[in-house]
């Protein structure tokens, strides 16, 4: 798959502080790309470089195989983490203003704003000032402004902060729909469950360096340990546990059940297949649960970061 965005060896220093060190990422067209990392890792700097807010000291950025130039600004929609609107300006006016700054004509902007305002059922806000709206309401306006000019690349930095669960869901669905309509999305957040849910690619940045990048499925495959979670109904849990321990690498597992199961995690070596394990277990008790342990992004995140410390 072709990449919509490629960052090559980007380095940015602020005085003696290195914000980014030789960071390269490839964002495939049509993907939802999770940009992850602890606070202060350099995500925002990278995002600002992509938005041409900050210039990198070294390295280059390609959008759709073209070296990033000022005219690409209209191809990118950016919802920053630190976001707000003019307090004393009317909602409609400033949405128009921001849309025009992105190169839309006034009429075009009006038309598209009408569509989105109707969609979010907020048309009656048009003549209100932002200071009369709640934070979540203002966020909706900001979201609209970000996507209004139909950019190829959308960058959302913590898009769900400030939204209640219902509106967060509305926004999530909109993001997915935009992706389906052909947009590529870069998504930076600390909320791992939304990464898990949305992202198909991720990059992990820690202390100014990229430490992991790839397709979510590939990464999970690489991080899985060939472990299986097993839940068994047996006559005697402790007996079986001891027997199993002689043959396999067994540890206790913890998951919720309604009856008294033996809950274990068995990590297989490469010579044993899951079928063999299943066969072996089948006459030891009633198998209630048998599933491969796939590491969550949260787990991978914590593990990779601690490994690099």
């Amino acid at each position, binding site marked *: 798959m072709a990449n919509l965005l490629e960052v090559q060896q980007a380095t940015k220093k602020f005085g003696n502080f290195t914000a980014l060190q030789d960071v390269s990422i490839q964002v495939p067209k049509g993907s939802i790309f999770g940009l992850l990392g602890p606070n202060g890792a350099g995500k925002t700097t990278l995002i600002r470089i992509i938005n*041409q807010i900050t210039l990198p000291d070294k390295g280059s950025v390609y959008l759709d195989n073209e070296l990033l130039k000022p005219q690409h600004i209209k191809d990118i929609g950016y*919802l*920053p983490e630190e976001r*707000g609107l003019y307090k004393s300006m009317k909602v409609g006016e400033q949405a128009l203003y921001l849309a025009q700054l992105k190169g839309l004509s006034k009429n075009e902007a009006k038309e598209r704003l009408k569509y989105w305002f109707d969609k979010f059922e907020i048309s009656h806000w048009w003549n209100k000032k932002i200071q009369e709206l709640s934070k979540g309401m203002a966020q909706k306006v900001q979201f609209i402004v970000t996507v209004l000019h139909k950019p190829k690349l959308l960058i959302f930095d913590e898009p769900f902060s400030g939204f209640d669960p219902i509106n967060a869901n509305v926004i999530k669905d909109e993001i997915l729909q935009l992706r389906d309509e052909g947009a590529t999305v870069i998504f930076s957040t600390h909320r791992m469950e939304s990464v898990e849910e949305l992202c198909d690619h991720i990059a992990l940045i820690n202390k100014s360096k990229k430490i992991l990048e790839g397709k979510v499925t590939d990464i999970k495959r690489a991080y899985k340990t060939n472990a299986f979670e097993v839940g068994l109904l047996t006559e005697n849990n402790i007996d079986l546990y001891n027997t199993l321990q002689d043959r396999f690498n067994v540890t206790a597992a913890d998951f919720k059940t309604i009856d008294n199961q033996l809950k274990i995690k068995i990590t297989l070596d490469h010579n044993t297949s899951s079928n063999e394990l299943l066969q072996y277990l089948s006459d030891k008790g009633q198998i209630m649960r048998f599933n491969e342990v796939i590491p969550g992004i949260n787990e991978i995140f914590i593990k990779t970061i601690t490994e690099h410390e």
Partner: protein
Amino acid sequence: MSNLKLIIKREFIARVRNKTFVVMTFLGPLMMVGMISLITWLATLNNDEIRKVALYDKTGSFSTDFKDSNDIDYIDYSHLTLNDAKDSVVIKKLDGLLYIPKKSTNSELEKSIQFYADEAPNISLLNRIEEIIASKLTNQNFKEKGFDLDLIENSKAKVNILIENFSGEKTSKMSSYIKMIFGGVAGYFLMMFIIVYGNMVMRSVIEEKSNRIIEIIISSVKPLQLMMGKILGTSFAGILQFLIWGILGGVLLIVASSVFGIDPQPVGIDQSLILQEDGQQEIQLILQDIMKLPLGVLVLSFFIYFVGGYFLYSSIYAAIGAAVDSETDSQQFMLPIILPLMLGIYVGFFSVIDNPHGTVSTVFSMIPLTSPIVMLMRIPFGVSWWEVLISMLLLIGSIIFITWLAGKIYRVGILMYGKKPTYKELFRWMKY
């Protein structure tokens, strides 16, 4: 529409719609005219009060000289004893008692005239009384020594030096006043404009920063573009405000003067200078002087220095606005703005007026931060074109340099939150 135009338009509308702006635009002239009217009215109030002075003249020769005028009444108490006269003055609450004793010679009399009063008497009143007595005594002295008073009066010469330059053009003595007023008004106007609208630029930057809209905007436009748009938009609002002030103030002043009968003449000019015997000719010369001022050059250089000075300072204001989180934090960075402005005004009002082509005036009309004000004040006095050229080139050069530096601080500062930067940090930002 280009982004710069959009920004200028937004800034302009945001400034003009601001409530304080609207109120000040229309209330400003009203307050100013109100103040002028109040002051003039108060002054006339004071003059209406008629002073009553008791006259105790033992010589008996002055009574005809002290005639009641529209603000002083003289009451003759010479028929009483001195103590009775004093008592009556106190009882009747008169303003004072003038005691002229009888002396054998005028030179003795000169030193023995006394004025009794509870409160220290008004200086102008005393001056007038002294003048009356002095002229009376002088005339008496002349007579005693056998001079003919009419001859003396006829022999008095009145000198009015006519000023003419070497190419034969006549000027009035008012010429340097006129130049001073032209320069002073222009310089002062520029300073006020810079302070008022520079501050507005700064506030608008701080507003964007504290609203957190800044990052949304600079993902669409270049920070320098935003800064320029802000400066331009605000200055257009400023020019509009000044125009309204000028027109409204003028109209109100005319209305006020016709309603209250207040003389709208500027107070600073000594009217006696204009309305001399050859007043007619003098006024003509003044008009000639004004016409002779290189008006074209004046207007052009005013425009250049005005724009240049405003740009120079407002980009510093913008950088300060970007560096801080709130207006209160901006105070620590105000010195580099206020100091050169004040210096410019002081050099202008003291050095330039005293010696427009002296070293101090010349140097300060070259230094970019003070040159807009000082040079504007010097130009009416005639500055050679190459001096103006050097000063302008220096100004333009430093505008480019300062805007560039300010742009760098601005670019970094608008994305910095939470900490109060120091000068050292600002310096470091310039290198990012």
